């Protein structure tokens, strides 16, 4: 052995030798980490704890000494370390550190002789085996349902999903409980042997029970009575079989008192039950030795619980293992009962004549920091629209809203409102839920889902609708739009609130399946961009952009705007003349920029969510989620006009009929008062009683006063609503909505199509502004870009046929039984299902990675097992994002909905570094 470098203990240099643990070196220097207590040198006891490099509760016996380490003895005498509250903050790309996801047939925990034999045997049977060995600093922190074995290794955290778990963790030596057990110089038998082998000078050693190997010592007969000494042990007293006590002077004591299986992981795994295959072998599987009931001394060193304390709570009625634990806190410290459980059991058996089970084994079996445990964690990802970078470039304050990043305001929201009311403005409404429905039963499905009649909707027209749940409560709202074509079964486009599209899709698929209806559903929320052009000069702007035809109010149709193919919906949320332009998300940026350019001299500027919420409030339009709660019936939100109870059955109808017979308790009403507007959430009082609260509130520049929506309780148990209420100690009046432009003339203004000007013709017919996107096969290595695909939803048979047609020609991703993405143009004629939905899809971004790089990335980001054949398609969560993988022999394509592409690229970048 040659001298190594030194590390620092409380500022002083301590020299260590090769292969020393921190504890070995500290003991050699005469420094007991905690000041005293029987050391085990096996990670089982709490007596060698110290703060190492800023992390408290480190077992110094388990850490290989290295230079530059800094040790603080914060745990001396059982004291708690301080919190270091000035840790530097996380950065946006912080994670807990690297993690690897592994899959194997057998994981063997503990690599003693038994564990090694079990691993070798499994390998001989041709199984894939992973051995987690504590001596190589792999510590299993928990076994969870799955099964999932989580371990910490020097290379980072490991998440292992095995077919079978073998627990070969051995046994811990039982610690002594006797007066003086908190002195230094006391060691378990194995610890004494280990320290002697490491060259630590222990002085004159007395051995109680079996003596340690490789060490000169005096072996004494009898049972342990007490340790004596000041700070460190100077004598040990034992009682002989005859009862006589005898003292032996010494500098160190080795105790051999039997074994307690290290069965925390075994108990944890067995607690999971089910089909989990767990084998506990070797020492870990042996029954625990039950020591003699302790007479005196500390039983639980972590919580400083003595035999006297146990008796005190026993005498006062705490007689169950768990109650004794909770009353004394024995077993709740850092060794989680490792030291005290044998003695608690023998104590309770002695007093109550019943051997009770140890308490429940819970993770963590070995403690690690939050930072280590967080490895591989991500924040919930917030998707970004195709215009996200445009908004940021324009200086917008971005807000997470409805699950998306949205521009809250660009500058002054009042000016944004002004542009809408007086000129023209554009707003990114790409976050709207957007769904297509076709199929023989499309009409039947919508008729059963919506409380408004759908069959009367004419081609090319749209209608506002609520979506109700079975209880008759409002789930969402949006539009039902019927496609223009008049022949064949009708097809529809539906919109939902920004936050509502995922639930709406699940809702529709669930009901369609429950009812056995033959429909095709395509959620296009992330595929289509949407820009609302609104304001008195909205039509002017669109004509400038070369639009030939604009739909009338309530209608929709396809037209080219600034060279981009758009479906234009004429409707209004702001109260002004509005056209909502739905287009392929890949064209959003070109369209947005062109509209701003063309509208510059008209005063066109974008408006954010803040302005939009004010504008719609002036019109009295509700915002589902803000103005509604989850028990809002149509009657409560004064939307009975949107429910036709005589149209036939629909989801929620019976509940609406039932609740309509119950007296109305409160209603969402329009309110107005002098400015300033009260806060949203302000309490509404009526004659000194609580009447409700404000849900939406704004000062209206157009009206010169504050306008609000709010809940107001009915009076006297009938449907009467108070006309006057008090808000923020000021009077307010209930008024009919809309507040602004009550007749709706501004939104419904008739627009004449002008004769096209030369420049407009140029803008419309000139070069296409449609962005040209690469195919999947054309994307470059490593960086994500938006790709152009074909997306088809059709019958399973039609999708299978299509896949065969394109097999070998183009990459085909069968993302669902009834849906496929094809990396080539597909026309409707190529699909045998007449109801098929066939679309150009620009909603995905893709990147190609060489197979080795991909394997590395996936080991660090993908928790599930990949298919082994090539080529293969797989989809699931990668780096906590919805990813599709196309795996070929030499490379792998990663596809992700483009709104998550930036996030995925960052996360993969972190995984790679």
């Amino acid at each position, binding site marked *: 052995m040659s001298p190594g470098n030194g590390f620092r203990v409380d500022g002083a240099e301590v020299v260590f030798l090769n292969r020393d643990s921190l504890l070995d070196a500290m003991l050699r220097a005469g420094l007991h980490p905690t000041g005293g207590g029987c050391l085990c040198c096996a990670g089982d006891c709490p007596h060698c704890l110290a703060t190492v490099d*800023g*992390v*408290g509760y480190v077992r110094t016996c388990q850490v290989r000494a290295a230079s530059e380490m800094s040790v603080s003895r914060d745990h001396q005498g059982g004291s708690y*370390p*301080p*919190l*270091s*509250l*000035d840790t530097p*903050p*996380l*950065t*946006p790309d912080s994670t*807990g550190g690297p993690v690897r996801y592994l899959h194997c047939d057998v994981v063997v925990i503990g690599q003693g002789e038994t564990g090694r034999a079990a691993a070798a045997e499994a390998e001989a049977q041709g199984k894939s085996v992973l051995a987690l060995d504590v001596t190589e600093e792999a510590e299993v922190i*928990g076994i*969870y*349902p799955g099964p999932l074995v989580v371990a910490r290794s020097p290379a980072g955290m490991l998440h292992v999903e095995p077919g079978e778990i073998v627990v070969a963790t051995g046994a811990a030596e039982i610690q002594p409980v006797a007066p003086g057990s908190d002195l230094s110089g006391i060691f378990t038998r194995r610890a004494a042997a280990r320290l002697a082998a490491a060259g630590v000078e222990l002085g004159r050693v007395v051995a109680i029970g079996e003596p340690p190997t490789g060490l000169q010592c005096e072996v004494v007969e009898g049972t342990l009575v007490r340790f004596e000494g000041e700070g460190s042990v100077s004598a040990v007293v034992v009682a002989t079989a005859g009862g006589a006590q005898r003292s032996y002077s010494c500098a160190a004591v080795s105790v051999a008192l039997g074994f307690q299986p290290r069965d925390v992981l075994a108990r944890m795994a067995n607690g999971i039950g089910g089909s989990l295959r767990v084998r506990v072998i070797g020492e870990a599987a042996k029954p625990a030795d039950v020591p003699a009931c302790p007479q005196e001394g500390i039983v639980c060193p972590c*919580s*400083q619980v*003595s035999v006297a304390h146990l008796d*005190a*709570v026993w005498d*006062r*009625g705490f007689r*169950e293992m*768990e*109650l004794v634990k*909770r*009353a*004394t*806190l024995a077993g*709740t410290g850092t060794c*989680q009962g490792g030291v005290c459980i044998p003695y608690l059991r023998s104590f309770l058996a002695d007093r109550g004549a019943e051997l009770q089970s140890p308490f429940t084994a*819970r*993770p*963590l079996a070995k403690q*690690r*920091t*939050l*930072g280590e*445990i*967080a490895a591989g*964690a991500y*924040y919930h990802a917030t998707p970004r629209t195709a215009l996200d970078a445009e908004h940021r470039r324009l200086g917008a304050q971005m*807000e*997470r*809203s409805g699950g998306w990043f949205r521009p809250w305001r660009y500058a002054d929201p009042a000016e944004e409102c002004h542009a809408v009311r007086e000129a023209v403005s554009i707003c990114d409404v790409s976050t709207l839920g957007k769904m297509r429905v076709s199929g023989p039963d499309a009409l039947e499905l919508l008729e059963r889902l919506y409380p408004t009649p759908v069959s009367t909707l004419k081609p090319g027209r749209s209608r506002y609708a609520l979506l109700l749940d079975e209880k008759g409560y409002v789930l969402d709202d949006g539009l039902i739009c019927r496609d223009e074509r008049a022949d064949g079964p009708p097809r529809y486009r539906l919109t939902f609130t920004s936050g509502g599209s995922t639930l709406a899709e699940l809702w529709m698929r669930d009901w369609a399946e429950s009812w056995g209806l033959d429909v095709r559903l395509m959620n296009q929320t992330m595929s289509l961009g949407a820009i609302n052009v609104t304001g008195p000069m909205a039509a002017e702007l669109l004509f400038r952009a070369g639009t030939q035809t604009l739909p009338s109010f309530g209608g929709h149709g396809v037209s080219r705007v600034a060279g981009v193919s758009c479906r234009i919906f004429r409707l209004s949320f702001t109260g002004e003349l509005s056209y909502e332009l739905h287009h392929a998300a890949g064209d959003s940026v070109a369209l947005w920029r062109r509209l701003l350019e063309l509208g510059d001299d008209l005063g066109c500027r974008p408006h954010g969510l803040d302005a939009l919420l004010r504008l719609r409030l002036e019109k009295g339009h509700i915002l589902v989620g803000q103005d509604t*709660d*989850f*028990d809002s*019936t149509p009657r409560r939100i004064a939307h009975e006009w949107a429910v036709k109870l005589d149209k036939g059955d629909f989801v929620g109808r019976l509940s609406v009929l*039932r*609740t309509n017979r*119950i007296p109305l*308790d409160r209603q969402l009403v329009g309110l107005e008062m002098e400015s300033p507007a009260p*806060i*949203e*959430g*302000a309490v509404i009082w009526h004659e000194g009683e609580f009447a409700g*609260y404000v849900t939406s509130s704004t000062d209206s520049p157009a009206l010169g006063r504050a306008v609000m929506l709010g809940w107001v309780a009915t009076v006297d148990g009938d449907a009467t609503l108070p006309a006057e209420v008090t808000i923020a100690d000021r009077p307010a009046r209930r008024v009919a909505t809309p507040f602004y432009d009550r007749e709706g003339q501004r939104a419904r203004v008739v627009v004449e199509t002008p004769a096209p000007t030369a420049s407009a013709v140029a803008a419309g017919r000139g070069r296409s502004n449609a962005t040209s996107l690469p195919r999947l096969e054309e994307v470059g290595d490593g960086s994500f870009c938006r790709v152009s695909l074909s997306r088809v939803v059709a019958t399973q048979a039609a999708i299978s046929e299509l896949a065969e047609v394109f097999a070998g020609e183009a990459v085909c991703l069968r993302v669902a039984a009834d849906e496929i993405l094809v990396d080539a143009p597909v026309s409707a004629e190529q699909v045998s299902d007449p109801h098929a939905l066939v679309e150009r899809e620009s909603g995905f971004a893709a990147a190609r990675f060489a197979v080795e790089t991909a394997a590395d990335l996936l080991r660090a980001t993908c928790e599930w097992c990949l298919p082994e054949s090539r080529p293969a398609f797989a989809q699931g969560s990668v780096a906590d994002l919805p990813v599709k993988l196309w795996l070929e022999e030499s490379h792998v394509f990663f596809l992700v909905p483009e709104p998550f592409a930036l996030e995925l690229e960052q996360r993969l970048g972190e995984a790679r570094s």
Partner: protein
Amino acid sequence: MNPYMERKVELRWCEPKQSYDVVIIGGGGHGLATAYYLATRHGITNVAVLERSYVGSGNSGRNTTVIRANYGIPEAVRFYQRSLDLYQRLEDETDRDLMHMSKGVLWLAHSEMGVRQERARAEINQAFGAKTDFVTPEEVKKLCPPIDLSGGGVWPVMGGTYHSEGATARHDRVVWAFAEGAMREGAHVHQRVEVTGLTRVGDRVTGVETNAGPISAGVVLSAVGGHVTRIADMAGLRIPIRTHQLQAFVTNHYQLQFDPIVSSSDLLFYVSQTARGEMLMGAEIDRQPSYSYQSGHPFLRATAFRAMTLLPFLRDLRVLRQWTGVCDMSPDYSPVLGKTGVEGFYISTGWGTWGFKAIPASGEQLAQLIATGETPPLIAPFALDRFRRDRTLADRGSAGTH
């Protein structure tokens, strides 16, 4: 010697009788508090509390011990403020150290919508007697200096509310104080007695079947957590409750340096330091209904990450232990308590993630109901028939996670 040792409480056990005036199913905080208030407020002591395991073994011993009243609807603010007030007096009343500490609850917002929600919370709290104020990021920093206002550069703190009377108490001590108080007056508490059925005569519940034999009762109250649907089923009732897991974890013990309870609705976690010095963290319920007590790693990892985002010092603390409780969730996130429509059978459930803070008020009010037969006004809105009457108490936003 540790100062956290229980030194005063004395639990007196006895053999079950065959008949009681009142039988309470469930020896957790709610059941024991009801027995305590029946005995101390109404002189009703011929009462048995039946616990299938040991007292406080369910959610009463698994919760994260937060006491607060910063709810979002008047009915809840009033009720929880009553409970908070009773908690403040409980140590004096029982002469037991409950380790009750007023420390304040800081509820953080990271978006314009979150700020709006917190302003609304302060408004409704003040209107109904709970001490909650809107606070700016600068005030947040003053109240809790370790908070990184930039939220790791991802979740900036844009404001919040401070609920100054928010507190914690040691859950086991509360359970034992109520148990001891009830026992001292003559009520019985029986451990390891499991109810296997309800005895009924006509439409009336007249007692319980147990693993220790039948016990007749004038009134039966179900105060169980996690398995209330099974008990209700025995009474022929279908109740709108789903049971979900709720998990939590603690770090090792550190010196007491962290004051308030910090909570974030957007990041979905909360943290406090226990009286013993552990940093205690929890999050939201698992979405999938379950009766299982199995802890999961996804919860631990995600919560650890979110917590250290706002409180970077947590990164270097070692996690000691994680565990799981099961929560009875009602459709409107408000409790269900009182009469059931079945004679002789009362219920206390729907305590979701907020049962601990309700223990004294729920015990007090149910005791009054049992003693008088009349539902007290404070809990009348929480009656089971509110779902039939379309008078639900939607309080999703403020029910929160703890």
